[in-house]
């Protein structure tokens, strides 16, 4: 069972993402509330997937994604954000991640997982 770490400052969002991953038979190893928390937990838990929100206190999603990719380029990163502009998309694609637009739907997330698994 693949392990997932969820990083999002919204409790509602974290729970929603967790629910979808559980339904898709993934193990959600932990949830983090901001970029710093997310990076610490990532280092500790070494998940297969990490979902990151863009807008977060302390360290935003793009910043966290960059750190993670520097630390472990193989980890599969899914950016989940409500504000997706072309600049964000460009950054995400450059780092080999995938972006999913909020509101989060199971189909969208499944599609992203499939693309990253290729």
């Amino acid at each position, binding site marked *: 069972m693949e392990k997932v770490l969820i990083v999002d400052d919204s409790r509602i969002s974290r729970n929603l993402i967790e629910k979808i991953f559980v339904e898709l038979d993934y193990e959600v190893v932990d949830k983090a509330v901001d970029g710093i928390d997310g990076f610490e937990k990532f280092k500790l838990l070494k998940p297969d997937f990490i979902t990151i929100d863009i807008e977060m206190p302390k360290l935003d999603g793009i910043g966290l994604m960059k750190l993670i990719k520097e630390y472990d380029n193989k980890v599969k990163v899914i950016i989940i954000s*409500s*504000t997706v502009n*072309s600049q964000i998309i460009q950054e995400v694609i450059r780092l080999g991640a995938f972006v999913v637009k909020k509101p989060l739907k199971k189909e969208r997330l499944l599609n992203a997982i499939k693309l990253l698994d290729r």
Partner: protein
Amino acid sequence: MRYLFSMLFIISSLFASDISKKVTVAIDPEYAPLTYKSFQGQAEGLIVEFWKEWSKQSGYEVEFKFFANWDEGLEAVKNGDVVFHSGSSLDDDWMVGSQELYKLNTVYYKIKDTKLDNNVIIGSIDQYYATLAKIKFPNAKIVMYNEYTPMLKDIMAGKIDLFIDDEVAVDYFLLQNGVKVKFDKLKDKYTTNVYALTNKKNKKYIEIFNKYFQRIDKSKLLSLEKNILNTSTGYFSTIFEKHKFLTAKELMWIKSHTISVGVEQWQPVIYTNTGHDIDGICGDFTKKIVESTGLKIDVVTGKWDVLLRDFKDNKIDLLPATYHTNERAKFGLYSDGYFKMKDSLYVKTSNNNINSLEDLNGKTLAIIKGYGTITKLQNKFPKIKLVFTNDLDDSINRVLNGRVDAFFEGEVAANTKIRNELIKGLKSVPVVSFKAPSLHYFSTMKEPILNSIIQKALKHISYQQRTKILSNWIVENKKIQKNTNMSISDILPIKESLSILFVFLLIIYILFKYLKKKENISLNSFIPIIVSIFLIFAVLITVLAVRNLETVQKREVESLLKAMVQVTNEALLEWFSSQQFSSAYIVNNSSLLNDIKILEEHRYDMKYLKSHQVMLDKYAKKMHQNFRNKRTYFIVSKDYIVLGSSDKSMIGKKVKNTYILSAINKALLKGYSYLMPFKNAKNDKLYYNQYIMTAWNDNVTNEPIAIYATGMKPKTMLDIAKKGRAGQSGETYFVNKKAQFISHSRFKNNSFLNIDLKYNGEYTKAVKVALLKNNGVDVNGYLDYRGVSVFGSWVYNEELDLIIISEIDKNEAMNSFKNLKITVYSVVISIVLFTILLMVFIVWYANKNKKVLEKNNKELEDLSINLEIKVQDKTKDLSKQNEFIQALLDSQEQIILTTDGDIIKSVNETFLEFFKVSSIKNFQEVYDAQCVCKTFNEEASQEYLKTIMNGESWIDYVISKGPDLNHKVIITIDDVDFTFSVTGTNLPGNNNLKLAVFTDITEMEKAKLEVEAINKHTKESIEYASLIQGALIPNNNIFRKYFKEYFAIWHPKDLVGGDIYLFEELRSDDECLLMVIDCTGHGVPGAFVTMLVKAIERQLTAKINHSDEDVSPAKILSIFNRSMKHLLKQEDADSVSNAGFDGGIIYYNKKDSIIKYAGAETPLFYTRDNELKMIKGDRYSVGYKKCDANYEYKEHIIEVKEGMNFYLTTDGYLDQNGGKKGFCFGKRRFKSLIEEYHMETMADQQEVFLNELSEYQDDYETNDDITLIGLKI
């Protein structure tokens, strides 16, 4: 009706709530007055009442279980057989108790005013109390007893000085046993607390008990205590109230004895159903006695003579239905007579020779052995040969077999048996020689107290109860049929129903056969007929059932009225018999007889008569002392001279009144007579008194010599009439032969002898029939003396020469039936109407479909007739059409050919032109091919057709894939590629021939490629444009500097959009500007406008940053307005361009804690102190052609404080369609989201806004660009 209620009851029981909340409570049956078993076997007492209150409070059902004694009850709790013990002290480890239920005083009793010395002797029946006594009186000698009685005897005999026990228990015992000795009470300081207790394993139950016990109003508990243990009026008044007609001694006797009751099978007088349950008339009286006294009985069954023998041998204590004989009176005690039963003779129907007992002289008469009448018969009719039988069956058989001439039996018993067992061939002959004898309780001489109890209990049976018993049994012997009293067949006419149903089914069958034959009718159209027939059937059955119900109801009333009359008649007779008996006291006096004889001889000597009045008055007075209600008397000679009288003016005079004379004559003839109150027709004088006249017979000649008339006030008689009331409107009254009231009317005053029983000059039906000495009953209704329609029953009492009538208003009697009838008819009519409507609809609907079907059938018929003609015509036309088609094909621009897949079969002109050949043959030669596919470019890309496609020929492939797929092929002629779109179809009627159409799309394909190139370029441009527009959107991190939390949702509908939000930091670190702008349209046009907006905004912020002026969002909007109009040349009305925006601008000064807002068709939502507020914004857009360039927007200033939330959105969010009906999301829903979630973090709020909109939108397309910004101060 009863069944209806039973059904309702069963149904309601099914839906009744569960009774899982139930606890069992152990009860000591001998712990009165705290807990005890009542005479009826119920748990009673103060603690029991406490438990009942607890049950009400908690909703737990309490089941009381009796145990033989205290210890067994506790043992049951310990073993878990019951949950609670009702009340006990706590003295063992396994026990856990509730809060205190009751406190018992420990009291020393000593005989009143006795003195104690140091060496007292104390009695006790309990070791605990003995220990307490030892503490208080260390030098005392303690004597232990097993029960109170010997202890009480000893204290009264002075053998002990004191005894110690629980106060309540002792007081109860003293009262119960009628102990009159007065005691002084010394209270001990020790008290005993009583707790509800359970096993420690069930501790939770104690918690539950305490929880609800605490809720009981304390005043309620005190009131219960007062009611049950009322010391001021004597303890336990409520306990003894129920049996107040019995003495404490009698109650004690009842409690300690079980009596054996001998019951024979003598239906319906007395019998047993199961061998244990006593039944019958006397059975019901016995049950009443048992109920009111608490007597415990054992039923012993057997033949009468055996029972009587056992009674004599003291093996049986009580015989409930016994006739009085002097012989029996020697070995048993009789109660008063309580039920009179006429005797009758029964002979064969064919026997017309026996009409009275006298006719049996010299003949045989069967009688059950042991009957009380035997001696009487033997004495009065010594010539009748009596044959003793074992039982009634034996008697009946002997008559039917001709072995005896008649049998003698109580009328009720014999009639019941004859009717129930459908015995034929017997008839009854009334026994007029004997008066109807009474049945008595016959109890053992060993226990006179039993007789006393029975006697009291009999008197305690009310008139109504007595009437009810008799009406149950005597009239029509209803109770014999009681178990099947009102069977369903009484109400539902099952036989008739089945007959009618059979007839209807037969009619349906015949009708169906007939119609099917005639009309070829289908079952569907037959349904309304079946429904109609069944409807008629249902209505008929209902009418029959209602009619039967009416009969049942009338039968009930009839029985009641008959019982009323019969019981009244019996009561009247009994009373008169007793009065007659007392009157006979005088005439049986032998010394007075001689005096009367002498008076009779001197009847014309007034002086002599008057001189003897003192002696007569003395006798009369003596009699009056013995018997109540006798005020007057007179003695009259057989030639009607008054020999003596309480009215001295009458003495020596001759009686002339015809009524009195008639009564005297009757008495002279018969030995006695009754003179009812009467009204003298001559002088209208009211003779209020009634008289019993008894004849004095000469002891030598046995001839009457005078009459003694005892006068009585009619009050008792009136009281008897008064008691006979059926229902609310019923009355029973007496009528004399002149059809006058000789009782009081309930409805008319002064009725006694003043009202004639007439209405409109006619005697009422009851009177009319009864005057002819006919008994009867009418439950069809007739008018009574008031003119009210009544049901009535009447008897003529020959002995008293009066009529007894009992009536009830018809309205009341039939009221319940009437209501039921109305309800039933209403329901039936409603069902019928509904069914008719439904049927009409079905018929209408069926007819409608039928018409359509008929029309279709006709059309089909016409079609088939014309088909042949048409085929012929068609064939003729076909050759013409072929020519026409070829011409048509030739005229087409497309290449059209037919082929079997390999070989070309036919082609059109265009084909020949395109391939530059003159015929198919020519094509085959030029292209060296049978098939057109040889010309297909096999090198072309995958999307083009090849000769073989997926294993099929090209034409089969085209046909099988259908027209939805665009099949294209490249044909190369002279090195030039032509692109064709190909469609194909199978030609009808020919399995192998296929038609292929080639449309030249060479030019179109070229154009398409060009468009695609352009599109690609455009798309790339737009994607690039989206990058540019994305660059306009601020980096959201910038919000963090000014606001505690925030969120920003920016969702353009397309790659680029007309929505934009801009955030600018101004000249100081405390000021910032947020603009949310919704430009004209969406997509590229909208994006263009956003670029313009951004350009203007840059200029504006630059200007602000270089000035000291206060920042005004309203002014910024105005500048936007003017700039947009100017730049887009929209100042003129003729301008082609018309672009602008709606939006809101927030200026925030962190230092001053203010927000300024101006809006163009855009509201600002914010929360302060958990209250949602909204600033609507101006209803004026920015920049449009119609907008006034000089318009000034309104500015709103809000003082802000920490915790306030601000929300700014474009209409894309609010106007998004969704939900069940596709309505807009709307402001109301948006506001309620804010109200519900504004306390959450902005990150969470963002999720809520996104998810709520997404859920609402569901599958609806996104309408517009969406922008929503949330800020928290």
